[in-house]
């Protein structure tokens, strides 16, 4: 009979025990344990692996579906954005041309008015000049006999009356 060794303290104190017992003791535990495990596999398959696996798969599917719709929506939004941007650019260009034409028109009008005014001023100035010239002329013609008389007077005063004749 194989003696039972009992380890007490680290020094492996050994004593003989009447009770039968060993480390490598194969008996009916082995097949029964195997059957137990197989049953456990089947039961856990029903209770655990199948339902939870289904949940995992469903969630994967759900997330994948959500992802794809989100991607589609993102693409849609992207398309809308580019369209809006295009429209915005178009509008900006249009407004630019409107501004440019308006500016040009305003300039033309302003230029015309300035030219007109300048012309009118020119005309008035010329008229004034002519008036001045005319008056100067008339003044000169009016002063001519007086100058004659005055210079004769001066001469008589200086040279005497007899010399003047």
């Amino acid at each position, binding site marked *: 009979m*194989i*003696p039972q*060794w009992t380890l007490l303290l680290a020094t*492996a104190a050994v004593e003989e025990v009447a009770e039968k017992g*060993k*480390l*490598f003791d194969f008996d009916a535990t082995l097949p029964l344990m195997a059957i137990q495990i197989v049953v456990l596999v089947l039961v856990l398959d029903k209770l655990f692996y199948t339902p939870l696996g289904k949940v995992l798969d469903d969630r994967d599917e759900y997330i994948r579906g959500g992802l794809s719709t989100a991607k589609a929506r993102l693409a849609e939004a992207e398309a809308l954005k580019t369209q809006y941007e295009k429209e915005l650019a178009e509008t900006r260009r249009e407004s630019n041309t409107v501004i440019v034409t308006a500016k040009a028109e305003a300039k033309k009008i302003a230029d015309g008015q300035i030219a007109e005014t300048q012309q009118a001023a020119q005309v008035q100035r010329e008229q004034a000049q002519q008036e001045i010239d005319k008056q100067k002329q008339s003044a000169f013609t009016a002063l001519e006999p007086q100058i004659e008389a005055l210079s004769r007077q001066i001469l008589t005063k200086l040279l005497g009356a007899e010399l003047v004749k």
Partner: protein
Amino acid sequence: MNPTVAAASVIAAALAVGLAAIGPGIGQGTAAGSAVEGIARQPEAEGKIRGTLLLSLAFMESLTIYGLVVALILLFANPFA
């Protein structure tokens, strides 16, 4: 039990564990060193390297455990007792 057999068994058990620890010890050292080198070279692969290292360390460790099993057989289920 025959005292000679008992003495021989105890010595054999000690040798079984002791000798079985040498090879795996060297192997584990080499493996760990290589793993550290790998991590230093590629820090982003650390998780994968660590997992593989632990698994291979367990394999090497089991070699020592085989020695230990032999020692336990000699001590507790000695076929010659």
